[in-house]
Structure formats: C-alpha cells, structure tokens
C-alpha cells in the first residue's frame, strides 16, 4: 500500500476552500441576484432600473468624486511627510513614523466619533457635509498613503540623487526625474489602499456627513435590507468601476516594481 504523498500543494487546501466558499461562490451569488427578479427569473430589470435612475447614477459620481478628492488630498499631505522622513538622517525617525501610524491601532468607529464630536463642538457638523466627509476620510486613510510612500522613497539609493546633481540636475530635476518616477509603485499602492475604501466606507460619510452624504457603499448596505437583487446589481457596478480604475492606475501590471499594489 502506498502512502499518499504529502506535497507542498497540500498546504494550499485550506486557502483554496476559503477562496471557494467566501470569494468565488459569493461572486456567483451576486451575479445570480443581480440578473434575476423577485421570482428568481432571469431579468435585466435591475440593470435597466439602475442606469435609468438619476439618483443612483449621481451617487456613483459623488462617490467617485469624494474618493478622488480624498486620494489627492492624502497624496498631497503624505508625500512631503514620507519624503522628509525617508531622506532624514534622524536616528529616531521611526518615532515620528509611528505617530502617523498609531491612529490605525485605535478603533476606527471611535476615531470617527471623536471627529464628529469635535465638529459638533466647533459647530460645523451638518454645515459642510461634503467637506466633513472628505476630512474624515483623509484622517482615516492617511497612514495607508504614508506607509507605502515612505517604503518606496526610502529604497531610493542616495547615490542616484548625487548622480543627478553631478550630471547638472537641480533639485527640481531630481524630484521630477528620479524621486517621482521611482516612487510610483508607492503612489499606486497608496492610491489603491485609499481610493477604493473611500468609495465604500459609509460609516464616515454617515457620521460626519450628518447622513446627508450618500456614497455607493451606503447604497449597497441599504438595498440588502430590502431588495437583494438591486443591491447585487449596485455591488456588481461598483466591482466594475473598481476594476476599471485599477486598470487605469496600472495596479494590475504584473511587474515586480508594483508589488503590493493590489492589496
């Protein structure tokens, strides 16, 4: 009798099972619900209803705009910080890096609540809903932008800057032709980790937007309370939007220098 050989492939089984039950099957379930009506008959009705409803379409656009602004603000705030930290010779710089990252360790609902209270105290809660939402998102997702940027910026060899200066390049040249292109993987990775969650994280938009800001995540949540078929359709549309934006940002390029971009 031959013993079944234990191969390395065996180690994949737990994850394969997980993948099957929690990723692949749910996808088909969503696909199934999206294209059926309440009697479980195949139908394009949800599709038609979605794309003929201006509120739904405008929600998608709003979500995209909020996510886009959040991402841009995150880049603008995170890049200088990450750059300065990466280039500094300070021995204790990890302490500063930690200060930026520790908020991640505090419960996120608690943090958002704290900001809500702060806004309430200042008196802008309910006044500037979109601004408040973006502010909360930036506060929430900033560490996810700083970390990948810091990692890629730190990896840039100092001698490259010396070479740039040696060849007659000024500080601007060094930034545009060395720092920026070489930190692109970090930017892509950061964008992926900020842009996508900020389209769906309705806890922030609910609490800080005073329930006046509806983003696509909120939509899905609400539909799954009443109408699974429409909810699935919205989820499917979001999936496609995410997929397309990932393609555009180059997140699926299977090159080693964009490693970690598909988190």
């Amino acid at each position, binding site marked *: 009798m031959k013993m079944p050989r234990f191969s390395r492939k065996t180690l994949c089984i737990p994850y394969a099972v997980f993948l099957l039950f929690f990723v692949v099957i749910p996808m088909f379930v969503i696909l199934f619900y999206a294209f059926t009506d309440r009697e479980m008959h195949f139908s394009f009705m949800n599709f038609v209803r979605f794309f003929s409803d201006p509120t739904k379409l405008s929600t998608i656009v709003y979500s995209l705009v909020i996510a886009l602004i959040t991402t841009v603000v995150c880049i603008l705030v995170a890049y200088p910080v990450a750059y300065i930290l990466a280039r500094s010779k300070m021995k204790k710089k990890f302490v500063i890096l930690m200060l930026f990252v520790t908020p991640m360790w505090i419960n996120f609902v608690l943090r958002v609540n704290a900001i809500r209270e702060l806004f309430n105290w200042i008196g802008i809660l309910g006044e500037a809903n979109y601004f408040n939402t973006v502010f909360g998102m930036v506060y929430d997702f900033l560490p996810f932008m700083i970390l990948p940027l810091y990692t890629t910026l730190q990896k840039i060899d100092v001698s490259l800057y*010396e070479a740039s200066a040696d*060849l007659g390049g*000024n500080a601007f040249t060094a930034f545009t032709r060395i720092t920026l292109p070489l930190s692109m993987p970090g930017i892509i990775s950061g964008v992926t980790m900020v842009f996508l969650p900020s389209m769906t994280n309705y806890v922030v938009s609910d609490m800080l937007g005073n329930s006046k800001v509806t983003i696509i995540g909120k939509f899905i949540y609400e539909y799954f309370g009443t109408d699974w078929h429409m909810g699935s359709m919205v989820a499917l549309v979001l999936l496609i939007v995410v997929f397309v934006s990932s393609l555009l940002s180059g997140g699926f390029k299977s090159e080693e220098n964009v490693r970690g971009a598909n988190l």
Partner: protein
Amino acid sequence: MSEHIIELQDVTKYYDDNLVIDHVSFYVKKGEFITFLGPSGCGKTTTLRMIAGFDLPTSGKILLNGQDISLLPPNKRPVNTVFQRYALFPHLNVFENIAFGLKCKRVVNTYRNAKGEEYTKKERLSKKEIAEKVKKALELVDLEGFEKRAVSTLSGGQQQRVAIARAIVNEPEILLLDEPLGALDLKMRKEMQLELKEMHRRLGITFIYVTHDQEEALTMSDTIVVMADGVVQQIGTPKGIYDEPANTFVADFIGESNIFNGTVVANRKVRFCGKTFDCVDDFGENELVDVVVRPEDFEICPPEQGIVHGKVISVVFKGIHYEITVQVGKFEVIVQSTQKREEGEEIGLKVDAENIHLMKPRYTTNVFDGVITKHNTVEFADGEFECDVTRLYPGSHLDEEEYLITAEGEKIDLTGVEVKVEVGLNDISISDDAEAGGTMGHIISIIYKGDHYRLIVRTDESEEDFVFATDDLWNENDYVSVIIPKDKIKLTLKHTEEKKR
C-alpha cells in the same frame, strides 16, 4: 596657475567629530591621470567627493582653474563622476541614462533679429544633438546598439561602461572615478584599466581616480597621491613612488618591501641585518633609520661573495619569478629572482648602494597626555596604568597614606595632575586577555621588519596609537589589551605649578 586645474589648499574635513581629512594640500595638473591611493578609510574617497561637491570641506579651499569652488553645488561644477556602484538610474534605459546630463544642459546660442541686432538665448540641446552625442559616447565605450536596453539587463562590465559614457558625454573638464573597477572580476578589471587609459589619451581631459589597489594605481597613473589616515603620505610618479618611498607606510603599501631597523654608522654607511652596507642617502652618524630594500633589488651570489649570506627557507613560484625567503642570522629576507634555488641552500646576497633606501622612522617613541588618579596610577589613551609617581620628583617617596613626600619633605597630592607620558617602542606588549593590560585597542597596522613586527594598536574612544615592536605574529584588526610594565612608563610634569596640600 592655469596649469593647475584643481588645487586643494589646506583642506580639512570632519564628519561629526571624526577627522577624515587633515590639512591636505596638493594640486592636479591639467590633462593628467592622477590617482588617490590608500587603504580604506584613508580619506581618498572623501577628497574626491569634495572635488565633486557632494561633501564640503570643513576648512580650506578647493580651487578650479584658480577659482574657489569649495562651496559650489555639484550641478554647477564642470566635473562628472563615475560612481563606485555606478548609480545608474534603474527606471531609465541606456539611452535615457546617458542623455540625462545632456537634457539638463542649457547652451547659449547667439541670434540676429530683424533689425540685425545680436541677442543670445539659453536653449536646450535639440533631440537630434542629444541623440548624436549619446551615439558617439556609446561608440567610445563599445556599446553601440544598446540604446533601448534596460540597465538591469546589463552585465556588471556593461553597466560600468554606461556609467562612464553617462559621465563623459557631458564633456567635463575633469572626470572623477571612484573605485570604478572594484566590482569587476580580475580579467575584466585588467581590460578596463587599459581601456580607461586609452580613453584618457583620446579625450585629453583630466582624470582623477580613486583606488586601494596599488597595482592599478601603478599601471594607470601619471601621478599618484598616497594617502593614509587623512594625510597625504607622498605624491609622485608611479616610478618615483615605487623607487623612492617616502616612509615605511608607502614602502609597505606599494609593492613588496623588506623593512629593517638600521643605524647609520658612518657617512653613507648603514648597518642592518648585522652587516654594514654602502648607501647613497645622507643621514647623521648614529642616527636610527628605517631601511627599505625591494625584494627584486637583492642579487643572489655565492655565499662568500655576498655582503650577507644565509639559508634558503622557502621558495615559491610566482609566474615570472621565484619568491625566495632567506634566513640571514635572525633576520628573514625576501628576495625575488628568476633563478630557482633549493630550500636549504646556502646563498649570498648583494645589493647596490642606490637600492638601499633610508628613511627617518615615523615613530621613535610613544607620547600621550595623561592625568594622575587618586590611586597614584596614570590615566591615558582610554585606560589606566600603574606607574611610579615618585619619578616626577627626584628623591621623593610615598608615605603610608600614599601621599608623595618630596626630597625636601613637602607633602603633595598628585590627584588630577596632568603629565606627559612617554613609552618606548620596545616597552609595550599586547595580550588577548582583556584584563591583562591597561587599555584595549585594535591592531591597525603590521609591518614586518625582518626579525620582528612593528605594530600599531589604536584605542577605540580617543583613537590614541601605541607603536611598538613584537616578535609574535598577530592579525590586523585583532582586539587586544595593551600591557606596559610599571617601570617603563616615563612621566614628566606638564605644568610646573601643581596642586599642593
């Protein structure tokens, strides 16, 4: 002045508190191939980086064609660098790497407007001009057709060539090369040495080259600057430095040498290896000198005809010659010869007077600044040593409470008194046992002197050096403790005013 393209005037450089360049002055002639040679940490790379502008001198001046450029940023200097690990831009292909400098460049063009007035405009180079220059640079380094290749797909030697092309395409006045061949294997290195030399001849610009490889320096350079410990040891042509080393460091570092302790016994007569030799260097009678004889300068002859004679103890074939070790009395002498000799054979050795190089010994004694502690020991060089404090005052003695009583009966508390500590070259020994001596340090230099070794041990904290002779073989970088017998520590008072009780 125009002959001197670069001139360093009394340049000193500190990194934090570490002195890396110590009052260095020299000049580089226009068009020459000059090499900074020295062991790692000698300051050669720092000197190059100051000329490139990556490091600024703490004090002193760097002149380029007579103009002070000490504080000019690197992008404003007409020099280009080939970096030690190439520093090619990984995200750019070969063409883009080489074109980097050209794209940064602005040239002043003169035009005539409609009224016939002349005016100038600063302009970028056109795409066509850049492409032509890159093509020429690639031809020069034998990489035609490599324009589109990603730098990561190139071999070490090819990357090296791209790095050189990237520098010379800008037509710099000076090309700086920081150990450019260090990462290549031996055969490739030899080829590149010749190619660089040829490139230097063709381009006609000044090359400043940094290496720790003495053979490389001798092969390529017009002028060599030998550095050690942030100080220039000798500047000269390869032949000049090889034939007339300025001190034992240079003699030991460049080529192989027999180094002996010698004494000048009469005018142009020096005694070493137990015999008296004729020499050509003038030194005062009875002066102690270091004697350097290159292994190939010994001539083998029958025992009775030699100035000295001895027994062959080892013969090693080195390709074009044999390296023969001869035991002459208690001295070991290394001789290179094309004739084969047998082990155990008795041979005589002769050497021409002009091949015996005498030099002033760098070290004659060890001097430190010390402080007497309350236990009547002396603190210096990061350690504490037992000593005889009564030597400070002739005729004095210690009472039962350990106070010093002078000959006149005066009672003196020596705690905290500053003294000059002197220790002879033969009075120091070292040990592996950390507890055995008064202080610890690393061996930073070992020079064989025929019958003994001359070692330098440097302490970690204050970087004080102990120089001494020993019969035992140690390894460089060994961490050892320094032992000095109590009676060998010579103390003298630094100030005549001392604390009295």
